[in-house]
């Protein structure tokens, strides 16, 4: 383990955390502004720095400032320790999930200008993967961490001494546990196809073969639905259920503690978008773009190759990754402003009677097809 | 008997009956200004023209005697056109100052305009109208506006025929004609407000009611005039707990269609000098208190006086129910044997309506007590002598007045007054308990002729006033004494057999 590796890891952590936090804050604006556009409204546009309003972007600053100076209210009979712990436990898993996600292929600082003929993943003295941690069980890590998200929600409700909060956390717990099953089961198909649990390998498989969505379309749908349910967003926002239980488990939170729940939920959108991208949309893969440049391979025509320097390729792939994530975020936003909330029995029916059998069926079919092809 | 047909309906009427009266008996209202059932026929307004078969011209139905086989039509195009033309003629010089006019809302010109005319004036300029006297003061109670007058002469005939004091006359001719007071006179007889009452338009109006309230706000409740022992039938017009006037209610057996000026103004008994909260103390020591405190003080005071030295004062101003309740309370609970009666002092009488006794229920008090009550003078004498030391008194007025009477009442050690308003008796009392006015309670009066007449409650009691039976029940509870009645129904049941005779014809509303 050399110094370069350590410094690069620290640098990646800092860069990712900054990216996540600013991304989360930006999501507030995206959600408010996008929903306004979808609903023929104007959206936030009042906050300004002098003459500059920047399409309401300054509201992020205003919101942040407000969150920080607001009274941190704790109910009199609440459990003060758990009440303080809950937002941390809800926020932490969301951030940690980013650790195992590959944002791009390996980047070699020594050969930024040269054409890379080795392939996207390689090692070298000045090479680093665009991923904080490359671990063997990356996918299991993601699922495990996602599973802990429920703890924060349950704690928040239990510690708040409020019936609405408790109801919200009960709903959150049962909903998240129910959909966790589908979330995991839908990925089993991918594991079978890709033959690995390492996330960077999964992306590489898609880079070399074909995107996951094309071989596992049903799994994509199941994962998307289960993922939205996991992030407790419309149409699965029963734990918040404004019309029935006010705000659900984070009802008794204010200031930055509330912001942690709030930002955590928004960042879950990004996490889900990233996971969808990584598992089903080829991650950093950009069509026709290989490690050494553009390969346009049309039928009945000669393969046309245009070599690009390594740095440019990685940059374009990073860009491609970001665009895909953005598209997935947008899809979730649009879904939120399209669908009405489920009833609770409908939610449970969907989870256990529809999604779970479908995901199990998907595994079986995938296994049979793979066995037949072998 | 004469048998005729009006608008396809047959009716048999006595000989001499006019067509308009026959139609009225059928429920057909023929528009009219000058005709009044109690007055002679003038037939000068021409509003009541009807079509009679086999007669070429329209006939004034107020003047037309019913004849056998007569076929009358009151609503043909010809009749309607006559009415419209008549209205146009009457309104030709009318100032149309309805916003200012007190009659608005009960004005026949307004009603008939809406029913039969409903056309804009063909007079192209306001300046062309004949201008006449406005705001002419006719007497202490009546004001005259000549421009609004339709010269129906109801007022003239009323004064001449009913009051037999022909103080009003017609002067000038044509569209300059108007009503005037006879030279050297004012309209000051005792029935002057009836001229305003019979006036179908806003020409004669009451100076007392002037600009006080619009008539459409007024609610009317049938009542008995509390002004004297005649017991005239009347309507009480009131709005939001305030009384505004009494109007005569037709009773052919008693007051016909009339009421005297004092009667019309008797509504003031409801409005003025009201006692609205229980009070303790005399003169400058008087202070309002809560019911509990007042009743406790009354009980303490009454307990101190031995039974033989207690007395009860009934009130000829109050209904039989209230008097019976007090008599029963005094006799059964307090053990009182001496009963006195008070009321307003006697006034002038005439042979038309006014009675010298200015109290509506002296005969009723006698019936309720079953004996003749002693006059208040004797109570004053005995109080001065010290043989009566405590009394429960109903009513505000003291039948005897003067410094001697006041001093005698002040000698009483315990005087509990139950009264709707302030007066000599309550002022002399140690405890004043507010009771409802004549308009705020239902009851029965027995008039000087011995006719018992019931009247309903018009308004809820003002302030903290309590119905007398209720008030006495609370006082009895304070004294730990039993009462022979529990509710207003008990009181009514007890009063009914004691009334002199069934309610007079037309008396019960």
């Amino acid at each position: 383990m050399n110094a370069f590796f350590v410094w690069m890891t620290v640098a990646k952590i800092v860069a990712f955390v900054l990216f996540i936090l600013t991304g989360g804050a930006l999501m507030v604006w995206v959600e408010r502004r996008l929903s306004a556009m979808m609903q023929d409204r104007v959206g936030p546009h009042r906050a300004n720095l002098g003459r500059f309003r920047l399409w309401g972007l300054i509201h992020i600053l205003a919101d942040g400032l407000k969150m920080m100076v607001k009274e941190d209210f704790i109910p009199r009979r609440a459990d003060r320790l758990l009440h303080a712990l809950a937002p941390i436990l809800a926020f932490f898993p969301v951030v940690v999930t980013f650790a195992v996600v590959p944002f791009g292929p390996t980047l070699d600082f020594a050969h930024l200008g040269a054409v890379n003929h080795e392939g996207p993943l390689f090692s070298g003295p000045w090479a680093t993967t665009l991923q904080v941690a490359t671990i063997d069980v990356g996918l299991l890590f993601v699922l495990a961490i996602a599973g802990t998200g429920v703890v924060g929600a349950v704690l928040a409700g239990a510690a708040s001494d409020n019936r609405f909060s408790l109801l919200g956390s009960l709903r959150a717990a049962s909903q998240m546990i129910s959909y966790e099953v589908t979330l995991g089961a839908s990925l089993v198909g991918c594991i079978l196809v890709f033959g690995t649990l390492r996330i960077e390998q999964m992306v590489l498989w898609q880079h070399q073969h074909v995107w996951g969505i094309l071989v596992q379309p049903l799994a994509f749908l199941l994962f998307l639905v289960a993922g939205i349910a996991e992030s407790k967003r419309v149409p699965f926002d029963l734990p918040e259920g404004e019309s029935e239980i006010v705000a659900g488990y984070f009802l008794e939170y204010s200031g930055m503690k509330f912001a942690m729940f709030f930002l955590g939920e928004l960042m879950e959108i990004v996490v889900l978008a990233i996971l969808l991208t990584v598992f089903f949309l080829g991650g950093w893969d950009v069509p026709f773009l290989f490690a050494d440049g553009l390969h346009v391979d049309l039928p009945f025509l000669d393969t046309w190759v245009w070599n690009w320097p390594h740095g440019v390729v990685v940059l374009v792939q990073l860009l491609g990754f970001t665009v895909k994530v953005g598209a997935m975020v947008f899809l979730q936003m649009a879904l939120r402003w399209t669908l009405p909330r489920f009833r609770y029995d409908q939610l449970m029916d969907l989870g256990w009677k529809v999604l779970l059998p479908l995901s199990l069926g998907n595994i079986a079919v995938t296994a049979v097809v793979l066995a037949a092809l072998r | 008997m004469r048998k005729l047909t009006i608008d396809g309906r047959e009716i048999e009427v006595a000989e001499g009956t006019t067509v308009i009266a026959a139609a009225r008996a059928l429920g057909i209202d023929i528009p009219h200004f000058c005709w009044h059932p109690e007055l002679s026929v003038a037939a000068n307004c021409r509003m009541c023209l009807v079509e009679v078969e086999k007669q070429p011209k329209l006939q004034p139905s107020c003047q037309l005697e019913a004849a056998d086989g007569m076929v009358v039509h009151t609503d043909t195009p010809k009749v309607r056109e006559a009415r419209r033309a008549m209205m146009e003629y009457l309104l030709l010089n009318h100032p149309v100052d309805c916003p200012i006019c007190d009659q608005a809302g009960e004005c026949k010109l307004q009603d008939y305009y809406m029913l039969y005319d409903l056309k804009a004036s063909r007079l192209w300029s306001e300046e062309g109208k004949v201008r006449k006297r406005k705001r002419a003061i006719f007497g202490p109670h009546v004001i005259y506006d000549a421009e609004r007058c339709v010269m129906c002469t109801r007022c003239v005939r009323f004064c001449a025929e009913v009051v037999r004091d022909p103080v009003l006359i017609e002067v000038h001719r044509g569209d300059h004609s108007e009503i005037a007071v006879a030279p050297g006179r004012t309209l000051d007889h005792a029935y002057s407000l009836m001229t305003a009452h019979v006036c179908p338009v806003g020409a004669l109006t009451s100076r007392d009611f002037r600009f006080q309230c619009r008539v459409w706000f007024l609610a009317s409740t049938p009542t008995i005039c509390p002004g004297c022992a005649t017991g005239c039938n009347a309507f009480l017009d009131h709005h939001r707990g305030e009384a505004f006037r009494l109007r005569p209610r037709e009773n052919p057996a008693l007051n016909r269609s009339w009421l005297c000026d004092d009667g019309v103004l008797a509504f003031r008994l409801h409005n003025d000098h009201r006692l609205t909260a229980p009070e303790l103390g005399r003169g400058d020591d008087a202070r309002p208190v809560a019911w509990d405190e007042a009743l406790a003080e009354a009980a303490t005071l009454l307990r101190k006086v031995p039974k033989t030295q207690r007395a009860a004062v009934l009130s000829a101003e109050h209904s039989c129910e209230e008097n019976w309740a007090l008599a029963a309370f005094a006799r059964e609970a307090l053990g009182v044997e001496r009963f006195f009666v008070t009321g307003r002092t006697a006034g002038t009488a005439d042979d038309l309506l006014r009675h010298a006794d200015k109290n509506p229920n002296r005969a009723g008090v006698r019936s309720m007590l079953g004996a003749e009550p002693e006059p208040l003078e004797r109570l004053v004498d005995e109080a001065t002598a010290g043989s009566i030391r405590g009394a429960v008194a109903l009513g505000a007025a003291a039948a005897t007045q003067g410094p001697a009477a006041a001093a005698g009442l002040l000698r009483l050690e315990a005087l509990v007054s139950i009264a709707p308003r302030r007066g000599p008796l309550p002022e002399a009392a140690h405890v004043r308990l507010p009771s409802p006015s004549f308009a705020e309670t239902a009851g029965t009066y027995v008039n000087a002729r011995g006719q018992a007449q019931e009247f309903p409650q018009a308004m809820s009691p003002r302030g903290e006033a309590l119905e007398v039976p209720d008030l006495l029940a609370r006082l009895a509870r304070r004294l730990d004494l039993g009462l022979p009645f529990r509710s207003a129904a008990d009181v009514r049941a007890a009063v009914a057999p004691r009334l002199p005779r069934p309610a007079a014809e037309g008396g019960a509303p």
Partner: protein
Amino acid sequence: MPYVVRRPDRNLWEQSYVPETVRGLGVTLRHFFRNVFGRRDTVTLLYPEQRRPYPPRFRGLHRLTQRDDGAPRCTACLCCQTACPAECIHIVAGEYPPEHPLAHVEKYPVEFWIDELRCVSCGLCVEACPCDAIRMDTGLHPRPVEARPHLIYERNLLLSISDTAGNVHTANPRKK
């Protein structure tokens, strides 16, 4: 009476949820792209900067009109008080003394109160007025106040309010 709730009939296509969701997404996206790139469908008025002009028949605060000599046009006929569905008008009528220059008018409002808090701005008082004495052409809203009694407007205050053109008089349409 018991009755059966008819569930809406749905075929397999709709029941499968996904195509219908996609159709719904289409609607959402249509609005989104139209608002971002094309014609804006938003009808929001950015209030302090943009203001919608009041319609010419806007019913604002009441005013009592004056005669040429400044006396109220009102004759205290109480038609407005009668017409008012909110019962927010209270008038006490009085009589001009015989030597008063307006003695021929006889009647005037000694007190004229309008409870602007109870007023529902229906304009029936203006319709009812036979003398054109009460109008709602001031174009004003009741001002914010610190205590409710401040919005119970009194006769002289109502007389002093002018219409949008600054006029406090009206000519009686019927006669001078």
